[in-house]
């Protein structure tokens, strides 16, 4: 159960990531079928990100920075540079999570890696184009001035942790404006990606080496 909760935020982040890079601006025209087709073309992704955490207890957002790499079908690296340096690596069905301690990267023994494995299972589903068949979230696309995709949890247990995820895409620019993960009133996480590279070669060592 703890694992299930740990994975929620990662799940949401990856939901956002893959919808972002699936040329979602077409979604309004032919909904999820277009997304399925576009997603199937993605072999690798790499990007930097800035994560802003908004909470009532904070006077200003807590900013985290990091990068991520993905190579089909199941290799991941999700890394935070600051403020809390941590890395999740998945390679050949083996997932590990590391945190910085005393200048070294130490393996996290709290179950985060196991959570990541489950996330990976979900992501594999998305890569197969099953965005609207996710067992955990309902997905709705709304067309307005911008395209907005809203993911809401199906399970009650998850609903207590995540209210919804909103992905807003600018129709003009055809780019994602924001990914917001809402946990409760005044409590949400916003992630912006930059320096995005799709289908460029990634050295397999990126998914194996901690440093």
């Amino acid at each position, binding site marked *: *159960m*703890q694992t299930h*909760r*740990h994975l*929620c*935020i*990662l799940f949401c*982040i990856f939901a956002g990531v893959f919808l972002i890079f699936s040329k979602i601006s077409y979604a309004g025209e032919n909904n999820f079928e277009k997304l399925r087709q576009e997603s199937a073309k993605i072999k690798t992704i790499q990007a930097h990100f800035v*994560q802003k*955490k908004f*909470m009532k*207890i*904070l*006077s200003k957002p*807590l900013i*985290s920075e990091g990068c991520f790499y993905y190579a089909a079908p199941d290799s991941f690296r999700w890394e*935070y540079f600051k*403020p*809390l340096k*941590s890395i999740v690596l998945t390679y050949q069905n083996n997932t590990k999570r590391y*945190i*910085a*301690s*005393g200048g070294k990267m*130490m393996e*996290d*023994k*709290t179950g*985060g890696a196991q959570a990541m494995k489950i996330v990976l299972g979900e992501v594999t589903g998305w890569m197969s184009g099953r965005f609207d068949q996710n067992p955990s979230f309902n997905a709705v696309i709304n067309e307005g001035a911008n395209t907005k995709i809203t993911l809401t949890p199906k399970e009650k247990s998850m609903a207590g*942790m995540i209210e919804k995820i909103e992905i807003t895409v600018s129709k003009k620019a055809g780019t994602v404006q924001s990914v917001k*993960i809402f*946990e*409760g009133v005044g*409590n949400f*996480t916003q992630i912006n990606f930059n320096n995005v590279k799709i289908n460029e070669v990634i050295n397999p060592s990126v998914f194996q080496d901690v440093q």
Partner: protein
Amino acid sequence: MKRLSLLILIFVLCSCQTLPLINSPVSLTEEKIFTCPSPFLKSKYRFIQTIEARVAGNTQGAIIGVTVADPATSVVSCAIMTAEGMVMFDAESGPDGLKINRALPPFDSENFAKNMIEDIKLIFFSPVGKIQNRGYLPDGATVCRYLEENGDWIDVITNKSEGVQIKRYSSAGTLKRQIKFKETAGNIYQSIELQAYESFNYSLLMTLIEAQPVKK
């Protein structure tokens, strides 16, 4: 019978821990200039810290903690989140008691919330109890000893080589918490180590990300 009673008394006394001996200041001048160590907050502050949990010296995991503490009102708000931003725990403690806004496993036990607020108060707030003794420990460290309402003892210690420490003892004299402010220069809250002596011992290493004064 008397012998048996004496033996029981000796056994009971031996089974209790004893608080470290405090030597009082020897002269009147020394007594006059004596000041109690006070690493505590003077005004309301917000702290954002990384918190690393260790068991038997081995790192188990790390999280981000946010604390808002007001020494004037003794109100404490705190939150714990993962690196990914998932809020695992969110609570506040004030005149109306403890209010838990969010608590996900493994942070969902009532004891956890209570202990966490107590630990935060131990670190940032001056003890509520009265000073019972003050002076010097055998190693020369300056110490002031407070007796809390619940019978616990709190020693606030300063030592030239080890900096400032806070120790909480049970009424029987058993050490329950030891807090070390590891930074001897600059912001005293830069690096704090909390050692907990429970059914299993653990330690938390708190490293400051940001400290912000909070205007009321």
